[in-house]
């Protein structure tokens, strides 16, 4: 964090109130978190967790009604007074309608697909409505609402919130604000959703080192593993002549058809991307180079494996494999095993 995080470009003096406001916001956030506790998806938005306040326009509307009331009282003008009362009551009705527009909405899902560091990521919020349509539901993070959608009766809508990925690693999802100012925009009702979910941020694929050759000797790790150990390749349907020892009996017991586990000899015709082989580089740079290789290898439809100090992803290919490898990179050094 910079020392002057609140100084906007072009503004020379730091705002003295900003620090105070930030502290207040942090305390409020902590209080809300304590009050609501952690949420398990799907979350039904019930009354206890909804907050509502007038918007800026609502405050202006209140001032307008107050002026009307004063004018009506001053001139004992019945029509002006009735107008003031009608608009005041209108404000109360609007408050109730706004609250009601959010009440009973369900947050069905909150997830953020993994992204490479530095890429603009997104948080997907899935909202659902029961019997009544809920127009203009907004979702956002700390700032102003980032996305807005209408949810039809018994329907659902997905809102995408921009969630930039700045650093590689495993990041807990931030709290998400679901809000609405519908109808009339005089009030905004909102709630916070806290879920224990995380997002993987892969290292940015960077680096110019050539990938290791497919036939390259695999170094110390190769020596440490036993030569007889073959590498898991996948499952295929049983054919006559297959050894019963190769049948996946556990899967058969779960009701699957007879499948045969296929192995292939370790080290044959594939590349190992090895963290240790990139020794002179710093940790993050090595991870970035590995990511580069993985992305390129996948694009070239090559088979590759990944070797990290305490983890190894055996050689394979395909999108799932790529994700697995990149996830291992993202989790590197976070104290978690893939």
């Amino acid at each position, binding site marked *: 964090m910079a020392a002057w995080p609140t100084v906007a470009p072009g503004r020379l003096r730091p705002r003295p109130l900003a620090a105070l406001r930030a502290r207040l916001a942090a305390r409020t956030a902590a209080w809300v978190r304590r009050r609501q506790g952690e949420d398990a998806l799907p979350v039904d938005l019930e009354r206890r967790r909804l907050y509502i306040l007038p918007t800026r326009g609502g405050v202006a509307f209140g001032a307008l009604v107050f002026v009307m009331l004063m004018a009506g009282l001053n001139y004992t003008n019945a029509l002006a007074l009735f107008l003031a009362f009608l608009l005041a*009551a209108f404000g109360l009705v609007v408050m109730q309608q706004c609250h009601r527009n959010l009440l009973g909405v369900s947050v069905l899902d909150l997830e953020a697909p993994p992204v490479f560091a530095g890429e603009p990521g997104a948080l997907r919020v899935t909202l659902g409505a029961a019997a009544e349509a809920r127009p203009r539901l907004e979702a956002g993070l700390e700032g102003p609402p980032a996305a807005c959608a209408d949810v039809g009766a*018994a329907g659902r809508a997905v809102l995408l919130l921009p969630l930039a990925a700045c650093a590689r690693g495993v990041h807990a999802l931030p709290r998400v604000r679901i809000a609405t100012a519908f109808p009339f925009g005089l009030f905004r009702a909102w709630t916070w959703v806290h879920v224990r979910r995380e997002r993987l941020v892969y290292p940015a694929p960077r680096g110019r080192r050539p990938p290791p050759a497919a036939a390259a000797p695999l170094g110390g790790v190769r020596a440490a593993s036993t030569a007889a150990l073959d590498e898991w390749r996948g499952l295929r349907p049983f054919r006559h002549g297959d050894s019963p020892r190769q049948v996946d009996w556990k899967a058969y017991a779960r009701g699957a058809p007879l499948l045969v586990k296929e192995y292939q000899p370790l080290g044959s015709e594939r590349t190992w991307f090895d963290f240790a082989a990139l020794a002179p580089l710093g940790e993050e740079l090595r991870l970035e180079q590995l990511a580069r290789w993985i992305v390129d290898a996948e694009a070239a439809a090559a088979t590759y494996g990944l070797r990290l100090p305490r983890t190894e992803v055996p050689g394979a290919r395909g999108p799932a494999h790529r994700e697995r490898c990149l996830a291992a990179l993202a989790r590197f050094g976070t104290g978690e095993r893939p």
Partner: protein
Amino acid sequence: MAARGDPLPFAPLAWACAALAGGVLLHLDRVPPWAALTCLGLITWRLTLARRGRWLPGGIARALLALGMAGVVLVRFHTLNGLAAGTTLLLLMAALKLLETRQVRDEAVLVGAAFFLLLAACLDRQQLARAPLYLAQGWLCCAALAVLAAPALSVRRALLLAARALLFAAPLALAMFLFFPRMPGSFWAIPRGNVARTGLSDSMTPGGIQQLAVDYDVAFRARFDAAPPPVPALYWRGPVLHDFDGRTWRRADALRPGVPLVFLGTPQRYRVALEPTQRPYWFALDTPAHSPAASVTLTADYQLLSSEPVTEPVAYEAVSYLQTRAGAPLGAGARRQDLALPSGPNPRARALAQELRARAGTDAAFASAALDYLRRGGFSYTLDPQPLGADAVDDLLFRTREGFCGHYASAYVTLMRAAGVPARVVTGYLGGEWNPIGRYFEVRQADAHAWAEVWLEGRGWTRIDPTAVVAPERLTRGMMQLMPQAYPASERLLHGAAWLTVLLQRWDAANAWWSEHVVKFDYSSQLDLLARLGFRTPDASYLGWGFTAALLAWLAFIALGNARLSRSHGDALARAYLRLCRKLARVGPARLPHQGPLAYCESVLAVRPDLRATLEALSQRYAQLRYGPAAGEPRGVAEFVRAVRALRLAA
């Protein structure tokens, strides 16, 4: 100095413009035409710009325009304060705001200005006929707010939303209106436009241009407690004119002390609801016994004079006597005042008066001789007389011989004074139209009248109406029947058919009710209301309680609505399934908490194998709707709900 682009969506801008235009239309006949045209023109121009996405004028141009407009208003009105000037200024500034409308917030400011224009209209005029206009404008503004908040709303949807919210708000607004404690008096006063509207003025120039009689507006309404006096006796007393310069009659600058009166006969008690006139005159039946309000004085010549001009409808109770007698002789000062006559003009009239007086023995005989002169002299009644020259009275008596009440009252009083009989001109209204629906008299500006009062020794001030001898039918028939050709064709048409007359009377009765019960609803009306609600000693604290009670009742209503919502928002599918389970539990085992739909179905079928076809279908349908790919599909849910409701299980 031009800002490019127009990023605003069109719909909110159009709605904001519509709300503003509605506000302008409410004031169309009150603000100067150039201001209204400027505003409407700018609105049109801005909307065209928004369609084409062209430039807006820059900051300096806008500032100059704003200053220029404020300057023009200042020059035209000599003030920026006051309702008319303030409204004009607000209207122009809102129109200027249009030129810098780039964000939703700017549009919200426009809608706010439209609300303020509505407020100004309410302060300005409160007639029943305008109430629907105000309501429509409020509705339009609220709908505009809805569109500002959700630009994708259709016109219909926005109007519906606003109507719904306003309908929900109406009961609470009504309760607040009834119970919100009013304050007597005001914090500050707004300078109002002092443009006198129609009505009696404080001077009368027979032979000058007269427009009074063709005005068909209601001046006031009067409801008698007991049986009303006959129409020809309804002389409503207004300004009394003493000073005469040979042409124009005026109210006296300094009134001489009057004569105490002895009231005879039965008192007439009645209630007058006076429409605004911008003048300080209140009206009472001849002769009022006392002042009906603290701010109104009963002058020495028995006129009701308020300390403030009547700018809003007022209602008051008055007591009058139709017969009086002087309790004392006329003071010297008053006698001198009511004998004063300029010596130059009208020499022939003065000669005639002296001749008639010489022939008559007494003042009273002279008064009736003068009346006879008018009756027999070939005088006629017309609302469109020839103009009179410098010697107005001579001209009338000896040359034109035609005129209306003002001419004859003026001439008669001149004759009286010329012969040494104190006399004065009284202006006011004569008669009124009986409204059988509201059971009151409508007295209109067209009923304005002028008559003479003559001091006769032994009797005191005596009313003599010279018009009555020239045109006796004026006493019994309204001006409309008497002089239909003086009215515009539209008015004649409206009063031509009987059913239309009834309709008009109904409308006037509604107006009267509105004036009395809505427009004049104040602190004392609130106390009346409390008394009618059964409070023995009504005071302001009860109002507070009433207000709180109404608010609580409304909140309870809202809470009830919410409770219904939370019952209904729980998913219809789940409710239907629970209902199915309750039905099944009556004929078989109850569902255990861990049992899913299919498992529970099996356990029921173990007891009731006969239900297999029905139950399996229902359970599978539920599982599909709940967990399948078409989960929550509305039509399927509705079908399931219907099927469960229709299910009848025999024990």
